[in-house]
């Protein structure tokens, strides 16, 4: 018998190794920071209290921490929301009929719209405490993150491969076991990708969501976003520079400490057998895997999960009387459909009455016109961006030496909140006395053009070698080469990128068409500036009108243009 087992376990097994010693301070430091930040979030606060903010760069790390806490809280909320939404929508038919169209609409509501509508409610929820305002900010970030994650999870749950579904049923997995063993792993790569996209969106809107105006009071929550808002008011270009640095640090930290390890870990959930040979790698994940402490923690978690799998098992099989199929009562379904139809009719009636009573039909027509202006901007800008970035992307993608590195750079640029650079543009426009209707437009696509670039790079680097050889062998050159070979080859990935870029541009139009620098405010005519202006005035009926119209435009564009192009790409030009 082994003698060692008579000693207390921690002494003998020496369950730590040198990786533990390195991790210990990191973990402790992180815990302290989180606790401190969380305590600051729940301070007493009454509307009108000034919140201390300073443009001194030495405060930036603290602001970064607060901003990050908000992002993290929003991300956790978005994950929970996605899980609940996806499971409900995928399993309950009655719920699906309501939830999926609702998400489609929520997705196209501009994010800033949520903030102006919900903030008063949240403040009322926690009277005398800063938490109410924090919640409003977190909710705004949440709205920029949740929808696409929920949609991705729902799509994955609906498209579980039929043979795995059959295997899960033959081996009698219960709903709980099925979720953890089949559905969540299958959905993981898509969910993770969407989390990263959401995070990029979150950074963009954090700037807007921390500086909130309620009933003519402007509240600036301590954070990088408020710091930027203050710097803009104070016309302090140096402070903007510092904010950019802080933002870069934040993005790099998230990438290295959170997403890269997650991506490397999730590689095992890839469903395709073959695929890229170069598995993603992360020093952080390697480190965590080598550390005895985290290994034990992970094993403990897995044990608990597996315990729960055994607990929530199915107790009867297909020969039990309980397994007999229930006959669906058609009357209930029809009743539910009738309720839905009635609700839609009521909503429609309310809408018409609202427009008639509150804003008037001429205003509605005017806003529709503004929507057309913004639509034209979005389309022209995407065309221009395509003209520039498609050739560049193809060139980079075909040069394997560059493609890996530059694709990462483009992805990084997409995550960077472009609105930080807006003040610079304002300064230039004012100095050269340019027309804001034209020169503010590029800002809309400034942050989202990178999606085009990195998708095209990915598409071009995936062109099979045989196709390249064949093209060279045939001596394809000039316009023919582009028309018959290169453009069709990258078309599917271009469409994917363009869909993302278009959605982002609509959202960005609210910030980009209405830009301030100190007391100079530049305004381009369009739907975005209309919403931004009404938000600044606090005119709720008109905010709602603007948001509604934008929603209609985005959904229309998705339905009539992007979805068709996407289907075309899937059908015809799949490599």
């Amino acid at each position: 018998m082994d003698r060692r087992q008579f000693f207390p376990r921690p002494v003998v097994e020496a369950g730590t190794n040198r990786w533990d010693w390195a991790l210990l301070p990191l973990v402790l430091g992180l815990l302290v920071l989180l606790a401190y930040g969380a305590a600051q979030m729940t301070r007493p606060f009454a509307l009108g209290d000034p919140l201390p903010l300073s443009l001194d760069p030495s405060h930036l790390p603290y602001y970064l921490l607060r901003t990050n806490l908000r992002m993290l809280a929003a991300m956790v909320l978005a994950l929970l929301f996605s899980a609940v939404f996806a499971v409900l929508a995928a399993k309950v038919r009655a719920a699906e009929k309501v939830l999926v169209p609702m998400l489609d609409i929520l997705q196209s509501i501009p994010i800033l719209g949520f903030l102006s509508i919900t903030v008063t409610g949240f403040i009322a929820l926690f009277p005398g405490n800063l938490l109410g305002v924090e919640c409003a900010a977190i909710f705004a970030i949440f709205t920029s993150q949740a929808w696409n994650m929920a949609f991705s999870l729902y799509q994955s749950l609906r498209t579980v491969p039929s043979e795995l579904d059959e295997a899960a049923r033959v081996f009698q997995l219960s709903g709980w076991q099925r979720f953890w063993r089949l559905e969540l792993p299958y959905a993981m790569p898509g969910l993770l990708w969407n989390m990263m996209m959401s995070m990029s969106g979150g950074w963009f809107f954090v700037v807007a969501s921390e500086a909130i105006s309620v009933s003519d009071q402007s509240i600036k929550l301590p954070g990088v976003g408020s710091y930027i808002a203050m710097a803009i008011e104070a016309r302090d270009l140096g402070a903007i520079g510092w904010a950019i640095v802080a933002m870069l640090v934040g993005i790099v930290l998230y990438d290295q400490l959170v997403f890269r390890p997650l991506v490397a870990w999730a590689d095992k959930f890839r469903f395709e057998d073959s695929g890229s040979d170069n598995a993603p790698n992360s020093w952080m994940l390697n480190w965590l895997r080598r550390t005895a402490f985290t290994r034990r923690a992970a094993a403990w978690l897995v044990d608990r999960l597996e315990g729960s799998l055994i607990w929530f098992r199915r107790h009867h099989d297909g020969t039990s009387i309980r397994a007999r199929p229930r006959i669906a009562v058609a009357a209930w379904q029809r009743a539910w459909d009738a309720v839905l139809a009635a609700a839609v009719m009521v909503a429609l009636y309310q809408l018409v009455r609202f427009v008639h009573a509150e804003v008037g039909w001429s205003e509605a027509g005017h806003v529709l016109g503004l929507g057309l202006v913004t639509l034209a901007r979005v389309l022209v800008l995407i065309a221009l961006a395509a003209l520039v970035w498609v050739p560049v992307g193809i060139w980079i993608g075909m040069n394997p030496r560059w493609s890996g590195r530059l694709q990462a750079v483009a992805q990084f640029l997409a995550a960077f909140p472009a609105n930080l650079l807006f003040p610079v543009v304002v300064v230039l426009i004012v100095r050269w006395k340019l027309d804001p209707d034209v020169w503010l437009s590029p800002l809309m696509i400034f942050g989202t053009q990178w999606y085009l670039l990195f998708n095209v790079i990915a598409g071009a680097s995936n062109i099979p070698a045989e196709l390249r050889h064949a093209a060279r062998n045939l001596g394809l050159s000039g316009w023919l080469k582009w028309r018959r070979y290169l453009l069709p080859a990258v078309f599917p990935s271009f469409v994917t990128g363009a869909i993302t870029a278009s959605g982002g541009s609509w959202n960005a139009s609210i910030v980009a068409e209405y830009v301030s620098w100190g007391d100079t405010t530049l305004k381009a005519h369009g739907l975005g500036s209309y919403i931004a202006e009404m938000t600044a005035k606090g005119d709720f009926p008109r905010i709602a009108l603007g948001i509604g119209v934008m929603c209609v435009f985005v959904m229309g564009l998705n339905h009539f243009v992007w979805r068709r192009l996407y289907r075309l790409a899937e059908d015809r030009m799949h490599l």
Partner: protein
Amino acid sequence: MTASIIELHGVGKRFRSADGHPRPVLADVDFHLREGEIVALLGQSGSGKSTLLRIMAGLVPADAGQVRYRGQPLSGPARGISMVFQSFALFPWLTVQQNVELGLEARGVAKAERAVKAEEAIALIGLSGFEGALPRELSGGMRQRVGIARALVTEPDVLLMDEAFSALDVLTGERLREDILELWDGGHMPTQAMLVVSHNIEEAVMMADRVLIFASDPGRIRCQLSVQLPRPRDPESADVRALIDEVYALMTAGAARPTRAAGTVDAAVAPAPLAERLPAADVARMDGLLELLADPPFDGRADLPQLCEEAGLPDAELLPVAHALALLGLAQLDSGDLQLTSLGRRYVEGSHGLRRDLFGQQLVTHVPLIAHIRHSLEQEPSGEMPDKPVLRLLSEHLDDTEAGAVLQTAVSWARHGEVFEYDYNTGALRLPTGEEETATR
């Protein structure tokens, strides 16, 4: 007589086609799976044999009739029934051991006991040492071994195999089949009965105690054949060869119109239906097989199993080609033999142009769908029309994927015979170039 494990009485199944008409897939199937036997279910693709297997697995409910397992009505997957899948259906994120433990975990077996049982099953199927590997690290044959270990570890009463070897190469498939038979005959399996769905005739004859041959439209058991040879069976022995020949003959009986209900009285009189399921035969293969048939050693008549061997094709791929040749009158199917017709002889000896003309002519006379499309195109002033109406016609009797497949086959044949063309980009059918003018005049 030994006890029945699974009993089917008058089982039927319908699927709804696109326009909402119910389309029968299975009709009136009576079947008993008894203790101690291996039954093979043979039939063409689309004959409903996979659906029948899924009904027995409790995955698909039957619309009519009764399904009982050990006397109890079956309304969902049962613990005593396990399944091996054509595409393995392993969970790619679970290791070999976790995959094998899946069924035990679902039943709530404790971790330590699970590990012991999984280890045994893994050793039984010859995968020791691979417990920690992910499925993607394994070859196809080894993956299917994991699939079998996963099915066996729950000690099933019945093992259902859905074309379990057809995704593997011939050699690997044979080896795995032998291993399973060895386990079965050696009594190492807890399993009382096996049902093997296959479209490989040799596989069925080598494994089964009973071979059921399926007829399609709607799927039903056409006939059954008892195989009383001792295992292991030698594929080269005269008994096995004779049996294979017999199965070929049964499967190709009435093959000129293989997809229609043979034996019904009015089938001989009524014209061939427009929406028949054309055998998915590749034109180049039809040419190749005809040439092979015309040349020595066959000189115009060949035994199908021999032809398979000579052509290097498994029977599942050769049969549709043979059926297509028979359908077009280029060859004849007769008690398991394929014989070149005089027209077929002219075709083989003809030039490229003559072949094209003959093929086109046979298409128009023997395939009503192609004749109908050609006729409709000739009425169009532009000689062109979308494929939608054709698909609509087909989906009156077939489901969407089948309708698409039939149209694809018809298009590939019609292109070869220059009867009509199809533009993939516009989805339009049109008369061959150079013929539009004659059509309009």
